[in-house]
């Protein structure tokens, strides 16, 4: 005897077509035009930051940097869906979300410039810093969410990961515990088609990454990751469920990494230019701009004005970054422990003595 004991479906959401028009059957976009423009601006701001960071790196003024070119809709859509007192648990390619949430550009520059102070965000004090070891931030988000649940707070954690991260045990383990404890957390996978040189299809035989949610018994949903409005809508709904005590959600946002993996990478080694070209047509900024133009919500010179303002901010922040003197040598001891242990004090003294200008 053979019978079916469980059935599952993975839905896919899209609101805006590539040409900016509402996709057939989509509900009209609920945001007022001003809100839509805010999202457009945020994506543009992230992109301009990104370009400046790459330029700084090329000029030898920044360390290795991971560009998010083309992925702005995921970061901005997610951040726009969050409440201020939610907590972001990012990976390393989500400055779009971090900037929206109030991380300053100079902080991000400092971080990628190799200075710990870049993680000491003045704005979102509770957001976790960038996470480099792929996927390892996933359980942190569950822990943050558990704290909210225990304190009875109507807050949620949002964890961002890449497609490559979905192969890591941490991801499954975290999603599983979040599921069984119904934690208020949303996991968003930015499926940008590549994990350095490893294409998505070589990462997993799963038809979608959203279906990894099924392993944890939680809802999984795919969304067009170049459609900032769809991303926001899906994450907003997931956050609402989370805050109401209905547990976590896994969202897979389909987008594309237009840039090299990082400034240390040369993607031409492993992928065809033609593939990239096809994806350029899906540019999320272009898509929302078209939508706004079509609906008459974007004045002719507005974008240019916004861009100019952004460029000014980027330059100002880059200058502030470049003008930031390094921390003193002794600072490497300052925050290892709440108080540097007496037993290790000799090390600090030796280091400082060596670092002294006359040493």
């Amino acid at each position, binding site marked *: 005897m053979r019978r079916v004991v469980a059935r599952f479906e993975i839905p896919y959401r899209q609101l805006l077509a590539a040409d900016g028009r509402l996709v057939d059957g989509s509900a009209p976009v609920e945001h007022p035009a001003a809100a839509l423009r805010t999202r457009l601006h945020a994506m543009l701001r992230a992109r301009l930051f990104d370009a400046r960071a790459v330029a700084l790196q090329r000029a030898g003024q920044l360390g290795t940097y991971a560009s998010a070119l083309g992925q702005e809709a995921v970061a901005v859509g997610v951040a726009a869906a969050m409440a201020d007192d939610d*907590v972001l648990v990012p990976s390393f390619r989500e400055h779009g979300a971090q900037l929206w949430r109030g991380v300053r550009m100079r902080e991000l520059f400092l971080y990628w410039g190799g200075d710990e102070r870049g993680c*000491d965000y003045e704005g979102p004090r509770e957001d976790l810093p960038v996470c480099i070891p792929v996927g390892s931030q996933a359980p942190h988000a569950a822990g943050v969410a558990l704290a909210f649940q225990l304190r009875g707070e109507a807050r949620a954690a949002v964890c961002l990961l890449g497609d490559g991260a979905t192969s890591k045990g941490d991801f499954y*383990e975290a999603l599983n515990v979040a599921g069984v404890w119904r934690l208020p957390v949303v996991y968003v996978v930015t499926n940008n088609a590549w994990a350095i040189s490893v294409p998505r299809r070589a990462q997993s035989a799963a038809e979608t990454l959203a279906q990894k949610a099924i392993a944890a018994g939680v809802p999984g949903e795919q969304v067009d990751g170049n459609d900032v409005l769809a991303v926001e809508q899906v994450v907003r709904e997931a956050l609402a469920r989370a805050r109401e005590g209905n547990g976590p959600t896994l969202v897979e946002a389909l987008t594309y990494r237009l840039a090299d993996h990082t400034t240390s990478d040369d993607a031409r080694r492993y992928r065809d230019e033609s593939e990239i070209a096809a994806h350029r047509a899906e540019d999320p900024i272009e898509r929302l701009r078209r939508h706004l133009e079509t609906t008459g919500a974007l004045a002719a010179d507005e974008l240019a004005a916004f861009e100019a303002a952004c460029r000014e901010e980027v330059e100002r922040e880059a200058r502030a970054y470049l003008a930031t003197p390094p921390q003193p040598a002794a600072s490497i001891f300052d925050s290892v422990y709440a108080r540097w242990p007496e037993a290790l004090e000799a090390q600090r003294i030796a280091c400082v003595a060596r670092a002294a200008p006359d040493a």
Partner: protein
Amino acid sequence: MPEPARAMAVAEAGDATVEPVERTMVEAIRLALGRAMAEDERVLLFGEDVGRNGGVFRATEGLQARFGAARVRDTPLSEAMLVGLAVGLAAQDMRPVAEIQFAGFGYAALDQLANHASRMRNRTRGRIACPMVLRMPYGGGIRAPEHHSESPEALFAHLPGLRVVVPSSPARAYGLLLAAIADPDPVVFLEPKRLYRASKEPVADDGRALPLDRCSTLREGRDVTLVSWGASLVETLAAADRLADEGFEAEVLDVATLKPLDLDAIVASVARSGRCVIVHEAKRSVGVGAEIAAGLAEQALDRLLAPIERVTGWDTIVPFPRLEDHDLPSTPRIVDAARRTLDHV
């Protein structure tokens, strides 16, 4: 950090009216956990089987009934997740106390410890801290199956940003665990499971923490310094007795905090005795014993009258139970080593 939603009781610093009662180490640990939870609502316990079952060694017995399943919770089976969860909780100003059932299953959590718990404070310049305690029964001598008798303290002690603490008696377990939970940084708290029920001593539930980062002297003596921690102190103290029979006074130090190491105390003792035997169950190569010996070779060389001896588990895989005694530092091995230092001319 947000203020925790509910008011948190503040610890009374030492309640001396509480009568000491004879307790085993596992009882003392349970007592400290209960005390910490009662005093600070942010403290929560989790791990595999810590809830209704009270932990496979019963260290958390009765705590779920007392504090509820929200604060004493069984997790799905994953040690890496446990520690990752603690990192997130600690980032939210909670005070997670996680249990790994046996230290041999803690290797899987090393990534979360090394890449996150130990460095969250440093990488955020103090914006986010990681006040967590990771409890792990460790060590051999209870005839447990393979993988259940590991002594991995050296791995944790190498990692910057962590504290590594090992109690050697019920009272020290009580006081050091309270200190670990109160500490603002991550503490790996290794419990010598062979001692869980080995003996009792008076422990008062007075809420008094013992100082971390400090050796303590279990026995004074001027001829040779024996340095150990955890369960091996049993054989080390027995060796001191035997040496006394032979007319030698051995000083016995309990290192207690393996990282950061209270080298000054060890140097002070060895400066007096001129002889040092370091004893640990853990594998010899690149063990914590090596760090102690290296420290002495740096800071007490001129006072050493004999080569430093290490009596340790060999650089073999921990044997299955039938042969484990050949791996564990035994009293005769310690006595032999001490005699070698005493015989050295």
